[in-house]
């Protein structure tokens, strides 16, 4: 008769969230334990709760009890496991982890026995004796005595029998101590992997942790693969039945589950003697009166009522009030901000001034953003000026204290490149080979091509098969590597946050993070506020300031909401794709779309922003939309349901929510399934679950009479949305900033470029291109000058901009400010005067000279350099009495124009002299090259020859290997398309060049029927046929914007 299998609860598992020690995901451990029929399983990562939310979700789905715990290596060389029995115990362990982590640098912890001598611990403690027990029984007895005195009846001795040498002797030793000190013994698996087959990966992570390779690990390797979850039959043969039974006793005492965490929002946000509901209503109604001073439209009133009711029902008042409070702080400090995210574009948020998207103007529906069925917290991201976000973060810390507010973590996981690098090194590959493989992989390649790369590298692998390498790389992908700081996601609690989740130090000084990431927070339904940084907000705020300075604003500051809506001149500018520097629609792809889509209203801009995304592009939605918009294709709907979903985008799905709605309407997905689909979309690329929905979606659509073509396109679009999808609410918020920046550019170009240049680095274009564009828009740019420039660029008059010292490479802000202070009373009269009155180091003096900032003394840069170099660094500067001391009566030859241009580019990144291409053209070095501006007059299909500075090289993932190059000449930009075969042929020229000469076929878009041809801006491309690197004609220190 087969003996009955023993019941068992695994009390000790570390997952891969014990970085580089555990070799299985928490979900794998939990699922495997459930499959083996365990009564419970514990996730007890080392001084960490980072993996428990994932384990909790997995445990719920496979219906197994999850015990939460954590193991610690104490300073006294004691290894201890703590298990949470109830909520108090959980909070106690969480606080202990925080304490141990916060007093150590990122990634380490420090804890000793005295940390446990606190008020009655609710948790259970298991002394993990295996490795700690020494041969000196006296020392062991001392530890037993200490532990017993601290934990008393809550202490167990955890026995693990991994079939190692001396096991029997060790067991007897343990038994003796346990008996003597009345410590009950229990089995504990010391599990590092869910199955024995993970042993190779276990060894590899050990090698990575110890920074060596597996061949050199010797005795540091686990001798066998026993640290996995055993079958109950194996357990019966390994452990005495009493030890197995004890695990069940302990598991029975551990009743805590993460579901019982009662997250509470801070309540100080609500004034005394009122409720959150009342307060939110008051603020909303106040705001509505400010937004519509004359008359609040009926539709808006009913919308507000509906939203407030839903917010009340979901108990989200505090969340909205907290965001309101943060936004209020920013507004008081004149920090420009704007909300976006699922709940941001609501009437309530508009009334609370969290967002500027007017619900009366947009067609957004609040229910789409707070879904009762989904039971998920609302999501409001608030963008702040990138240079001032820190002020907002410090306000949050001040208001709630560091113990109640912390940033969410981001789990940094193994990506193909790091996986190849670390696994290769662990397997003992040559460093050069590993580098080569990793680098080759990153160059426009996908991990699937690793196999091919290995073959190309002729990897003989000495003792290791390439197959093994590939398998291990595949296994380690997506393994967590360490915790990093989320870009701005704050968690704020009523109680100390460490009682909810452990805190630890981030790499950045004075920053603490919690051990859970965005997904964990979402899974547990906690509320997170994203405090994000956006460069364009800084630029707009600065530009608005300049407008206030130079325009008649009746003494009032010109603000974002003073920008008039639907300005025709602005839309006309957009239709001409004149959008360099404009938020979101400045990329080449967006600029190509603008003349075709021809935005005329705000909603057109919302679509324009969302349509140039991988989702709609991969789904093939762009051309159908354009054809319908231009009237070349009729707009039809298969049924009324589809019309409701797609009506506002002419029957073509463009926004993320539309695709989800389509799954319900057209493929028959239930609400729950649609929700799962949405989750799969947002985690696409991380777990590949999206493909599980493919058949259901396509079959569902086919059953309902849709074409296979439409169904396929929809599915492809879903994939594209995974990483880069744009919900309508985000697009609407971005469209506002796009419109605002366009309006400023169109109506106040001086203010626009000054704001933009003073917010660098940001956006798509370098200062060189922005300055060129500014000059084309009639803005006069004055050079950097030691007697006139400030640190920032200054708008001298509406159309005159003086460049600032911030442009100079190697100049520091403090030095520039000292310089400005020194000349506050009177300008510098000479080089000697400058040297005497400023205390700027030699390096920065050189930087000023080489940037030609001394031209106000009628001294060319060579002479200035000669003069300034005469001051010996070792001698005090005040010895310089006059310029005579500096120049020795030696007159150096002045630089030639091309030399000036070269120095300009080297030290300021741009030139205000003639464009280098103009100089080359004048010297007849660009044989018959057409200027960019003349391309518009050339017929489609003609062969043209162009030349210019390379400003951008882009290979988008959606463009099947096509490379886009942008060339700049003295008249504007040329867009070049290089097909794959030409790229291979001209690889050297493409990669090495700074100036290119290209011969190719001109392509231009057709005229839009029914529109005045004069008003249309054709989109012109050159399809490269012949490419020549002509950088040698003028060596320039320029840089191009290269990206995927």
């Amino acid at each position, binding site marked *: 008769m087969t003996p009955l299998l023993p019941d068992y609860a695994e009390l000790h598992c570390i997952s891969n969230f014990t970085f580089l020690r555990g070799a299985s995901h928490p979900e794998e451990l939990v699922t495997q334990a459930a499959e083996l029929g365990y009564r419970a399983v514990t996730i007890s990562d080392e001084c960490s709760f980072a993996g428990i939310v994932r384990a909790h979700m997995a445990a719920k789905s496979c219906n197994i009890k999850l015990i939460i715990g954590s193991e610690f290596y104490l300073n006294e060389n004691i290894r201890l496991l703590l298990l949470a029995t109830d909520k108090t115990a959980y909070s106690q362990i969480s606080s202990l982890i925080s304490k141990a982590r916060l007093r150590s640098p990122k990634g380490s912890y420090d804890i000793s026995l005295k940390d446990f001598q606190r008020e009655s611990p609710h948790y259970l403690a298991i002394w993990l004796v295996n490795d700690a027990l020494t*041969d000196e029984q006296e020392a062991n007895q001392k530890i037993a005595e200490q532990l017993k005195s601290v934990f008393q009846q809550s202490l167990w001795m955890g026995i693990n029998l*991994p*079939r*190692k*040498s*001396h*096991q*029997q002797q060790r067991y007897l030793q343990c038994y003796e101590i346990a008996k003597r000190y009345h410590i009950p013994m229990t089995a504990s698996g010391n599990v590092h992997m869910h199955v024995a087959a993970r*042993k*190779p990966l276990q*060894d590899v992570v050990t090698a990575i942790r110890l920074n060596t390779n*597996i*061949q050199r690990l*010797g*005795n*540091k*390797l686990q*001798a*066998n*693969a*026993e640290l996995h979850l055993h079958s109950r039959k194996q357990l019966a043969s390994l452990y005495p039945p009493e030890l197995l039974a004890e695990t069940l006793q302990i598991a029975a005492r551990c009743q805590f589950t993460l579901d019982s965490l009662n997250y509470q929002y801070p309540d100080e946000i609500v004034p005394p003697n009122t409720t959150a509901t009342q307060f939110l209503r008051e603020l909303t109604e106040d705001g509505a009166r400010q937004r519509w001073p004359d008359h609040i439209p009926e539709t808006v009133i009913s919308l507000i009522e509906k939203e407030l009711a839903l917010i009340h029902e979901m108990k989200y008042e505090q969340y909205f009030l907290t965001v309101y409070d943060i936004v209020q702080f920013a507004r008081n400090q004149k920090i420009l901000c704007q909300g976006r995210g699922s709940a941001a574009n609501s009437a309530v948020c508009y009334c609370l001034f969290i967002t500027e998207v007017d619900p009366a103007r947009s067609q957004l529906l609040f229910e789409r953003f707070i879904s009762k069925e989904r039971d998920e917290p609302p999501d409001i991201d608030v963008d702040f000026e990138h240079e001032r976000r820190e002020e907002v973060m410090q306000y949050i810390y001040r208001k709630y204290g560091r113990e109640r507010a912390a940033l969410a973590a981001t789990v940094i996981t193994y990506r193909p490149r790091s996986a190849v690098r670390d696994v290769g090194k662990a*397997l003992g590959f040559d460093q*050069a080979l590993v*580098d*080569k493989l990793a*680098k*080759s992989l*990153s*160059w426009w390649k996908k991990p699937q091509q690793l196999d091919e*790369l290995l073959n*190309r*590298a002729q990897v003989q692998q000495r*003792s*290791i098969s390439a197959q*093994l390498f590939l398998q291990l790389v595949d296994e380690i992908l997506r393994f967590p590597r360490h915790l990093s700081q989320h870009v701005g996601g704050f968690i704020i609690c009523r109680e100390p946050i460490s009682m909810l989740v452990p805190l630890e130090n981030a790499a950045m000084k004075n920053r603490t993070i919690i051990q859970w990431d965005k997904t964990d927070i979402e899974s547990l339904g906690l509320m997170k506020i994203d405090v994000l940084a956006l460069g364009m907000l800084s630029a707009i705020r600065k530009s608005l300031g300049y407008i206030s300075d130079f325009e008649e604003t009746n003494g009032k500051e010109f603000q974002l909401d003073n920008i008039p809506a639907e300005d025709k001149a602005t839309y006309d500018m957009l239709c001409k794709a004149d959008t360099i520097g404009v938020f979101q629609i400045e990329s080449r792809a967006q600029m190509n779309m603008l003349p075709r889509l021809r935005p005329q209203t705000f909603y057109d801009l919302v679509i324009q922003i969302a349509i140039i995304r991988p989702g709609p592009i991969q789904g093939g939605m762009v051309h159908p939309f354009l054809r319908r918009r231009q009237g070349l294709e009729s707009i039809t709907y298969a049924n009324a349901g589809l019309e409701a979903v797609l009506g506002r985008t002419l029957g073509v799905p463009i926004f993320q929510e539309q695709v989800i709605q389509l799954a319900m309407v057209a493929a028959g997905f239930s609400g729950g399934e649609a929700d799962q689909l949405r989750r799969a979309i947002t985690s696409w690329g991380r777990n590949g679950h999206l493909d599980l929905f493919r058949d259901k979606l396509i079959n569902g659509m086919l059953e309902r009479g849709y074409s296979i073509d439409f169904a396929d396109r929809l599915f492809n679009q879903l994939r594209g949305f995974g990483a880069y999808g744009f919900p309508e609410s985000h697009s609407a918020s971005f469209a506002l900033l796009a419109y605002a920046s366009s309006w400023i550019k169109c109506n106040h170009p001086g203010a626009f470029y000054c704001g933009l240049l003073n917010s660098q680095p940001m956006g798509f274009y370098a200062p060189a291109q922005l300055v060129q564009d500014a000059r084309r828009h009639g803005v006069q740019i004055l050079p950097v000058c030691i007697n006139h420039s400030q640190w920032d660029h200054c708008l001298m008059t509406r159309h005159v901009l003086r460049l600032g010292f911030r442009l100079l490479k190697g100049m520091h802000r403090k030095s520039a400010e000292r310089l400005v202070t020194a000349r506050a009373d009177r300008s510098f009269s000479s080089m000697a005067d400058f040297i005497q009155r400023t205390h700027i180091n030699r390096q920065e003096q*050189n930087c000023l*000279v*080489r940037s030609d900032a001394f031209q106000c003394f009628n001294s060319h*840069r*060579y002479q200035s*350099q*000669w003069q300034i*170099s*005469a001051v*010996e660094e070792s001698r005090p500067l005040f010895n310089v009495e006059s310029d005579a001391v500096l120049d*020795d009566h*030696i007159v*150096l*030859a*002045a*630089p030639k124009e091309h*030399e000036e241009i070269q*120095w300009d580019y080297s030290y300021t990144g741009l030139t205000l002299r003639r464009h280098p291409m103009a100089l080359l053209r004048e010297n007849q070095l660009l044989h018959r090259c057409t200027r960019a501006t003349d391309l518009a007059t050339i017929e489609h299909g003609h062969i043209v020859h162009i030349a210019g500075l390379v400003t951008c090289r882009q290979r988008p993932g959606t463009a099947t290997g096509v490379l886009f190059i942008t060339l700049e000449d003295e008249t504007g930009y040329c867009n070049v398309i290089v097909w794959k075969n030409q790229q291979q042929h001209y*690889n*050297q020229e493409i*990669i*090495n060049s700074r100036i290119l000469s290209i011969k190719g076929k001109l392509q231009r878009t057709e005229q839009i029927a029914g529109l005045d041809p004069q008003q249309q801006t054709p989109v012109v491309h050159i399809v490269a046929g012949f490419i020549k690197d002509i950088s040698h004609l003028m060596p320039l220190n320029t840089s191009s914007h290269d990206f995927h």
Partner: protein
Amino acid sequence: MMWWLCIRFPSLMLDSLSIRESTEATAIIERQIVLQANPPAVEKGIKNGHSMATALSLHPELQAVERQINREKELLEHVAVWAYRFSPQVSIDEQLSAVFLEIRGSLKLFRGFNRLFHYLSEGIKKRKLHFYCGLSHNPIASYLISYSDKDPEYYRQSPTKLDSKKILQNLNALPVALLPCRKSVKKNLQSMGLTHIHSVFSLPKTSLGKRFGREFFDLIAYLKNEEKEHRSLFVPPEHFNSSRYFLNGLNNKQQLHPYINQLLTELKNHLRFRQLINRQLNWQLNYIDGGSDSLRLNSSLQVFQQRSLFDITLLKLEQMKLRANIESLSLSCKEFEKIGSYNDSLFQQHDNELLTEDDSKNEKYNVVMDKLLSRLQSKHCIQLSTHNDLLPEKAWRAIQYTDNNNSDPLDGQATPLRPLWLLSKPAAIQQHQKKLYWQGYLQLLQGPERIDNQWWKQRHARDYYIARHSNGSIYWIFKDPINRQWFVHGIFS
């Protein structure tokens, strides 16, 4: 006036690793930056200064080799030693990748510059090194001149005089970027529009010195031959190498004895002069037919004992069979140690009086070990050492005898229980009536200890047990869990 010839090696990094002529695109890199690319790599568009990412995007199959400065230095030294045959004044400069020779004094010996230069350039070509030459009155000027497109011959006015005008003319035309001075100085010069040497030469030295420091002032003065040469000369390494040649060849080992003694005496003098002690003796017998035999002897003696070394050499020689008549005998030593406080008397034969009792014991032990090693050959003298490996048969290993302890530390792990005697090959155990049987019945006492490892080579999975044999001995046996076969692996004492 001196005549300095500069031999500049522009591909030293590649040449020192013999990869310039490789047909595969290869680049020398340092910190992921290409420093030198061989011609096939250059053909693919790879340039010095490229990052590896750029280089690989130009040519994914590029072979990258880390720079080895030591090899470059060795190569320069090798050339310098060889160049001694042309001049007693040789200097090397690792920064400039160049070797300098003062050849004015050698012109007569070589009957003129042309012959000397011919021998020299042919010799370098034979070594397959890429090089350029320059000729001037001082080494740095000759280095700069090596960048001009003229042969050294061009700069000779007469058999005994260099053409200073031509030298200056060509120096003037060179870019300042070539000047051997700090990068910041060169950058400063360029940012004044002083891009060529003539523009620097035309300025007053004092003004230049004020701006660029004393060092630069000296450099300009030196290039204008206003400063004396103070370059330190290359001193050849202290290797010992000496030979005896036998006109008609020797055909008997006995005949070698006096020459062996002579060479050892020479070595003794060499060591005494330098206060060194040798660690090796490398004898080479060159036969008339072109063949050769080598004898390598290690010495662990603390003092130079000529008699012992002589005896050890003869012992070794006895084991050898002469293959033909001996044309020459040479002795070379490369490894030396400083003898510290020992004085001259230590080099006297049979004089061990200055050693302490312990030293003396050790020295006797060393003599015995040296003799044993000579008699038995080092491959037959072994010692045991621990090895950091989980597989029992690899946890100990026999290694060639050395006087160092080569045991691996166990990294704080408890020493696993292992029998002292491991069978060289596990012996299969039979099963009789479900009992384990190997020259008697075995009864399991303890276990298993599971070893499951080396998945990256050949997986070894074993469950070890301690078993009592029917004869009372304690055996270490294991079961292979894959094919379920039992084996005896060791016997406990």
